[in-house]
């Protein structure tokens, strides 16, 4: 479903702020696969998601989604194939518009928007049904502005909106990071239900080792802009949160070794 081929991206190239965010990322994801992406800070995991979504264009490499080469497509064009939930609970919804209006907007993701009526009675019925399944009593408040909802409720709605039209690819970018533990738990369980229920191909970035161990059927670990570990199948099922933490420690230790070795060599010979 998704093929990433030798993706390179450098920000502020040539300046003191230069960041080599992606250094030759290769990744192929099968349809229906639920992939978790973890990594150290600055490893490029959020950048990777942003690159796939089209927030910026990569310097080199190709991105193919459902057979189409989307490497040069602008973000709004890719949106026809991609559903997205952001880390910021305020980014995925329009605060001054009602829940119903937001859902109506999501129901036309990627489709042309003309002078047809946005919110019909039959749509309202469908909205009420699907919002009821969130179990957050939001179906009674469909005409309330979204700005009045809590972060957890907004993320739940954003998730519902992103998956409304069964996208070819669902991108979850640390979408529970900004929520309190109870809301985060609710949203994670909802995410799992939706991804499994609709068999959506999903890429989820997370900071939580627990989420990474418990969810998904494949785990990709990134460091410094490249993929360093890739677990799937039985190996992924066996992973525990501690195993992942150990992997992080290994990387850190290897890094320190490199750095202290370089320092020592510098002192001795320079």
């Amino acid at each position, binding site marked *: 479903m998704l093929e990433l081929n030798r993706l390179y991206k450098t920000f502020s190239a040539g300046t003191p702020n230069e960041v080599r965010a992606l250094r030759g990322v290769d990744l192929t994801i099968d349809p229906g696969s639920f992939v978790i992406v973890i990594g150290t800070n600055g490893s490029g995991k959020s950048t990777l998601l942003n690159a796939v979504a089209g927030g910026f264009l990569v310097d080199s490499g190709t991105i193919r989604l459902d057979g189409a080469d989307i490497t040069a497509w602008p973000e709004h064009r890719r949106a026809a194939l991609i559903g997205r939930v*952001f880390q910021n609970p305020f980014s*995925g919804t*329009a605060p001054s518009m009602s829940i119903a209006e937001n859902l*109506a907007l999501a129901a*036309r*993701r990627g489709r042309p*928007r*003309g002078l047809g009526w946005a919110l019909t009675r039959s749509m309202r019925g469908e909205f009420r049904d699907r919002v009821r399944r969130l179990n957050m009593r939001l179906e009674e408040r469909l005409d309330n502005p979204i700005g009045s909802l809590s972060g957890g409720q907004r993320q739940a709605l954003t998730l519902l909106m992103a998956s409304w039209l069964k996208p070819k690819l669902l991108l979850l970018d640390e979408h529970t990071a900004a929520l309190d533990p109870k809301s985060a738990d609710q949203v994670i369980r909802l995410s799992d239900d939706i991804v499994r229920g609709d068999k959506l191909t999903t890429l989820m970035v997370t900071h939580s080792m627990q989420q990474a161990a418990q969810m998904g059927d494949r785990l990709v670990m990134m460091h410094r802009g490249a993929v360093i570990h890739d677990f799937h199948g039985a190996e992924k099922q066996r992973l525990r949160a501690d195993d992942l933490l150990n992997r992080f420690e290994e990387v850190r230790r290897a890094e320190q070794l490199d750095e202290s070795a370089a320092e020592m060599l510098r002192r001795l010979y320079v």
Partner: protein
Amino acid sequence: MLLLIGAFTIGLILALLAFGVFISFRIFAFPDITADGSITLGGAVAGVLLAAHVHPALATAAAFGAGTLAGATTGILHTRFKINGLLSGILVMTALYSVNLHIMGKSNLPLMSERTLASMADTAIHGWTGRAMLQVMGWEVSSRDAGVLALALVAAIVVGTLLYVFLRTNLGTAMQAAGDSPQMIRALGVNVDNMIVLGLALSNGLIAMSGGLLVQYQGFADVQMGIGMVVWGLASIIIGEALVGVRDIGFVITGAVMGSVLFRLIVAVALRGGLDPNDLKLVTALFVFIALVLPTLVTRMKRKAIVTT
């Protein structure tokens, strides 16, 4: 009475200006100064066409069209060339000053002897009632004044309703979302830049149409007529929101009409009461200042009252 009718009529005509400013300022949070230029553009285009004996309805429609071009230009400067929104509006407004002079050929264009929507309304009322002067609540009103008032009322209602309906369509809701949360709507497949250009085009089209109607009422087009008009539009919206609240788009649109008329009434009464016309713009600015500050003051006083009881 003549004073009131005049104020009402201009207030209703300028409600279209308020609608336009509503789209740019409230929907897109875009401080669009183009309005000062596009209202004059509308007046100039309509005026020149009317002087050339074009049908007034066509001339007014052409004014709308010219306004959409001006608005689209501002939008393109902002989205394609990444020029700051405020600056884009100022650039177009400045350029329009020369454009308007070229269109009119001179700085003032008289229209009293031409066929305009006002003269057509006059003829219509005259034909309908058979009289040149009407009796309204004990006052004498010319058929021209009554006709234009009715025309302005119809225009405000029709355009307001069309705007409301448009904002309830898929395109209209997408446009609102583009102003409210561009990141969200981009992730739902909408080209935000196109929405901005379309929104500004629509906004300035309405503003220019307002100018086109205004010159037909006034009986002349003047190249200076647009100066300070954007503040007028903003004031109408703010007053309207203070009067009817911001809960529903329908309320805001109705509020804009009420605000425009109320504002014009207050100015008319002030002028009658002895206000120096030279001070008019100063008073306008003061009034908008108060309208902006009052809601916050009122909320603060209410809060203090709750705390101290």
